[in-house]
């Protein structure tokens, strides 16, 4: 039904997992040595957002559902994680798991509502639901509204690893990112993932073959929500705060931008897109100020008009590989 990801054609090519595995090794090695030249705080930010984008891409690239409200999963998990770590004094690992679990639950509830429609209607519903969550977070006392939750303690992971040590913290965040990435990879390349792709290609056919399509879509939605929540919860621990920015509509828009730029329906697309956008915001933001918004909007327009496959998608298409 939805032809949202033009990379559908690419997966028709010889799907040798070899290219993807090589790319994974390269990515992992680069990320392991990255904190030497690059400011680790910025890297951790990029990693969390990249995981968020990958989780979003699972839904749009492989199931064909464009969610315009994914920030609700990122933000609510970060609030839960920050609150449990600060006020309940939980171990950071537990706080993160709780945050991700809450997002999964939220995903179940909102997904059940949103799955009823497809395409544009699905996007509008997710948008409205995330706005509801935003206003709830604005009013709820435990989030402290505009001020956010500050000074979240980083604590001792598993009573052993001192997360206030920058190096340990970085490798922990990297481990979380790689874990999430691998979960997505395994999901896509599994029988479950094949059914999802079938639903994307031709939903009526999948139904006629006897698959309970709604259940598959909901499962994918919940998984995407849980991983987005994992990213948000980790973000709260390393950044030591949780604020309205994470649950605002602009965050939902940005993740769409990153995935579109990187390539919907490719595995590495969202990672590249996220790194590019976060870098631009961080380093060019000082010189360009408000022009960053204009640039982001222009990238959207240009991508939709001429670069629908995204950067990684175009590269993959050019080399006739699967990335």
């Amino acid at each position, binding site marked *: 039904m939805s032809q949202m990801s033009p990379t559908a054609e690419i997966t028709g090519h010889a799907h040798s997992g070899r290219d993807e595995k090589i790319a994974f090794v390269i990515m992992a090695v680069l990320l392991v040595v990255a904190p030497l030249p690059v400011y680790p705080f910025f890297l951790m930010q990029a990693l969390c957002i990249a995981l968020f984008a990958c989780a979003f891409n699972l839904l749009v690239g492989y199931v064909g559902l464009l969610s315009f409200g994914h920030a609700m999963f990122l933000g609510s998990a970060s609030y839960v994680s920050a609150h449990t770590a600060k006020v309940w004094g939980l171990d950071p690992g537990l706080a993160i798991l709780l945050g991700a679990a809450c997002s999964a639950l939220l995903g179940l509830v909102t997904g059940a*509502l949103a799955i009823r429609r497809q*395409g544009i209607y699905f*996007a*509008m519903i997710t948008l409205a639901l995330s*706005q509801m969550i935003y206003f709830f977070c604005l*009013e709820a006392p435990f989030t402290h509204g505009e001020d956010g939750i500050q000074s979240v303690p980083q604590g001792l992971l598993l009573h052993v690893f001192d997360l206030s040590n920058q190096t340990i913290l970085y490798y922990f965040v990297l481990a979380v990112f790689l874990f999430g990435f691998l979960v997505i990879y395994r999901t896509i390349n599994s029988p479950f993932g094949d059914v999802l792709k079938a639903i994307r290609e031709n939903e009526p056919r999948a139904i006629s073959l006897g698959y309970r399509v709604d259940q598959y879509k909901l499962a994918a939605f919940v998984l995407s929500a849980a991983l987005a929540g994992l990213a948000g919860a980790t973000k709260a621990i390393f950044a030591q705060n949780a604020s309205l920015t994470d649950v605002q509509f602009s965050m939902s828009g940005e993740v769409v931008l990153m995935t579109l730029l990187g390539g919907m329906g490719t595995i590495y697309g969202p990672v590249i897109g996220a790194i590019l956008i976060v870098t631009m915001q961080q380093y060019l933001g000082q010189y360009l100020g408000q022009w960053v918004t204009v640039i982001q*909007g222009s990238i*959207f327009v240009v991508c*939709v008009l001429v670069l629908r496959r995204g950067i990684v998608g175009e590269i993959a298409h050019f080399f006739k590989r699967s990335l």
Partner: protein
Amino acid sequence: MLSILGISTQQLFQQLLVGLINGSFYALLSLGLAVIFGMLNIVNFAHGALYMMGAFCAFFLLNGVDLPTLHFVGGDGTWAPVVSTVHVSLGISYWWALLLAPLLVGAFGALVERLLLKRLAGLDPLYGLLLTFGLALVIQGVFQNYFGASGEPYPIPKELTGARNLGFMFLPNYRAWVIVFSAIVCFSTWFLIEKTRLGAYLRAATENPTLVRAFGINVPRMITLTYAFGISLAALAGVLAAPIYQVRPAMGADIISVVFAVVVIGGMGSILGSIVTGFALGVIEGLTKVFYPEASNTVVFVIMAIVLLIKPAGLFGRTA
């Protein structure tokens, strides 16, 4: 004084009236969105930004613009180019702005449709959504750069200043005008689309463009004009909003998500649905502010969730 649930009837009527005012804006904006979506199957995310452009247009028409000029200075053989700005004062009043701003912004909309949206003709409508979303960011960003975020003041037109004492509250004349004018515009549009020949052509062109083309009607032009018309409705709402709300670059972004919820509740293709739902939701929001103010922001979305559970096509919509 009567009292319902601890709130006096006076307060109730006050908030109902204020709700109707907000509802007028919701109705006008969701009408524009419904026209564009119903006729063109495009979800126009730029609607909020174009509403903002309408308000700024009214501001420019009144206060004039700073036009960049290039002139040369110097003597003794060397002429250096100097870019400076010249202030062109226009002094066009609010009443003319009500006509001109929608025309100007509508023309801009037509340009956008011709140059950008046409290229997405055969594709998944989600691409249209993404394109207009990007466009909204560009427009808002440009305005924010030149005007900052605190916005510009726009005076209430002299003829509409002052307030009328209704007994239970002072109703500012301008806000009364907003309600009346929006109602007129909304129902005229509904009439135009549902009851006139032109409207019939438009509706036919949506259902079966090839057949309508075969009858000799220029369908692409009709599509461009329809988009421009929807945009001009947004700009009109912007001019109406300028004297009450500050003319700010972010004013569109603030209101757009509520307007989308209104359209979903009303039924995405239904013209009447968006008008009625817009006014009704404004009133409901106003009532919520009295009884349970903390929920006033979320009530529209809660209603949307309920409607989706019961009638996914929307209250007035046809199943897509």
